[in-house]
């Protein structure tokens, strides 16, 4: 069987998800051996515009030119995998997604920045069909490696469908929320990070995005019980996935 042709692409973001791929130091050579990496702008110059079996795309769409780039990638790929919070939910770039772009631009660049193009930040699925998504800000190396294994085998990757709490408890962590009243997004955030934040006595920031069926309303009321003000809760919940419908539902009523 010929090796699958793979491309790794980046729209606007910190490029952490690509970097996390390069962070597979021990596995990198094996990965490169298993796939035919025809495009990876961060790591090589001989990038080809040919049809792909799998495209991994990180980043948020924030300018019109990126919509076109993304559509092109979609057209030439059998499978499009969104990687990271930016690509799946908009990420930090979409924190203020509902604010006027021109105004933000003015704050940042002043009058001189008028020429800078900007559209409402969007996750990939808002512009093209996404076949699969790896969560996280950034993605986790083990999930990426597993995903490659599954894809090579011909299946879609398997990801946990439960929240961070499950991982947190499997690690036998003391619950920061229950025992220390630290606001924690663990109960409504998708697992996958091995409960990094709670393992350091910090509340989960929610970088893996809301878990399927997240009980956001309950999280809200528990945070209130723990003494947080409405605007604090609202800020806390709208960092990595402000645009996801389940979070939006709590704040924007749709």
């Amino acid at each position: 069987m010929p090796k699958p042709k793979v491309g790794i692409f980046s729209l606007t973001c910190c490029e952490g998800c690509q970097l996390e791929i390069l962070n597979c130091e021990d596995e990198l050579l094996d990965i490169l051996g298993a796939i035919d990496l025809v495009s990876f702008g961060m790591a090589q110059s001989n990038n080809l515009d040919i049809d792909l079996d799998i495209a991994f795309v990180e980043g948020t769409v924030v300018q019109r030119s990126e919509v076109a780039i993304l559509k092109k990638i979609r057209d030439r790929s059998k499978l499009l995998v969104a990687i990271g919070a930016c690509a799946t939910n908009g990420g930090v770039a979409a924190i203020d997604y509902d604010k006027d772009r021109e105004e933000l631009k003015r704050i940042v660049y002043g009058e001189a920045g008028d020429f800078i193009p900007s559209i409402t930040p969007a996750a990939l699925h808002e512009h093209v069909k996404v076949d699969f998504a790896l969560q996280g800000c950034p993605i986790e190396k083990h999930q990426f490696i597993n995903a490659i294994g599954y894809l090579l085998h011909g299946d879609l990757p398997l990801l946990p469908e439960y929240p961070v709490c499950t991982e947190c408890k499997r690690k036998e962590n003391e619950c920061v929320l229950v025992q220390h009243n630290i606001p924690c997004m663990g109960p409504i955030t998708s697992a996958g990070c091995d409960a990094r934040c709670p393992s350091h006595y910090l509340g989960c920031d929610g970088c893996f995005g809301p878990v399927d069926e997240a009980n956001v309303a309950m999280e809200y009321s528990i945070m209130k019980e723990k003494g947080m003000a409405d605007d604090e809760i609202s800020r806390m919940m709208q960092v990595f996935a402000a645009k996801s419908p389940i979070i939006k539902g709590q704040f924007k009523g749709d």
Partner: protein
Amino acid sequence: MSSRTIKVDHLYRVEGHGGIRVELDGKKLLDVKMEIFEGSRFFEALIRGRHYNDVPMIMCRICAICSASHRLVAIKAVEKAIGLEVSPQTKRLRELLILGEIIESHTLHLFCLAAPDFLGFPGVAAMAERHGDVVKMGLGLKKLGNQIQEIIGGRKIHQVNAEVGGFGKVPEEEQLMELRRALEDKLGDALEAVAFIESITVENITKSPSIFSALTNGEENYSYTGDTILVSTGETMPVEDYKKLTNEFVVNHSHAKHSLYKDKPFMVGSLARLYLNRQKLKGKAGQEMKRLEKSFDPDNILWNNLGQAVENLQSMERAIEIIDQLMGDGYREEEIVKPLKIKGGSGSAGTEAPRGTLYHSYTIDSDGLVTDADVITPTAINLENMEKDIRAATILAIDDAEEDLKLKLEKVARAYDPCISCSVHLVDLRKEKNSQP
């Protein structure tokens, strides 16, 4: 020969999206542009109205490769703004985290991004087929840097553990000792890495002198933190006055602002740090630098690569030293310190990120919310200097075949280890275009 344009549409093997454009009329150089087309995320705008505790979490997402620097300098600026003092142990752990980032970032750049240029490969994958051992060695060092970031910061990228006031959980003593052993183990490789980079970067393709700037902490050791800005023209200034140095302005071909010091481009990064602080190098790194002193050529931007290799060695030695100091001073569990009462204020801080000096500055109100923010990144600072060097390289190589010339220009740009995600963000509101003092 009439007018022509030499374009590197997409500069690969760098972090972010940018290109190079050179306009020529015969042998006359008309214009050089580093084009940056990374989208803008308006960080300085979206951080407004957020609590200062969110600042590190959000601002570190400016860039992944130097997320530790962004995170820590944001923390430091916030702490200055709210008047919070952290423990000496916290400061040491923070320095250790930065060193992890320097090691990771430098070795990634040297082995995976820059080296293929000099050995004639399109990328690290192709290079690995012929130079498997070198690539493995480089990846081993890179992993060590990541190991430090993982242990101190709780994650290789966007470290969760470093917060305003300290660390969520200080690493276990045993983890630090394990790190120490790993560092000792790899010192030999770090030395070899210097020799390897030395063997591939020699030719001076720019011959263009620069002004350099870096931070200093007034201490004896070669450091990446400090509150004083040094400039190679002899001036010094406190970090709070960073705007006098950077003077950012917007140019039309770039979503990143540019900087000029007294109307001249200047450079930050490894080469700048070595130029200004290399006498402080100790240990094996010091010996290596002495050995290399004869060939030290600050006019040759490719020396930035060799400089990174030296800094990598230095960082590993320094990391061992810090671990020893931590253990010697009675290492203990510490809680995050919190201000008793938040008084509003402004704070600016700088740090030496792998690519050069990075400045963050925040104004925080008495509710703890950010009202104003400013970030100046090394790549943005370097853009003018990069254009200057590309100009110089073009002139020297004007007779080369177009492909050779392009490769040279790419080598120059890549030697800056540009980090384009970083460079894109706000310019100061209060400054108008081209309004230099």
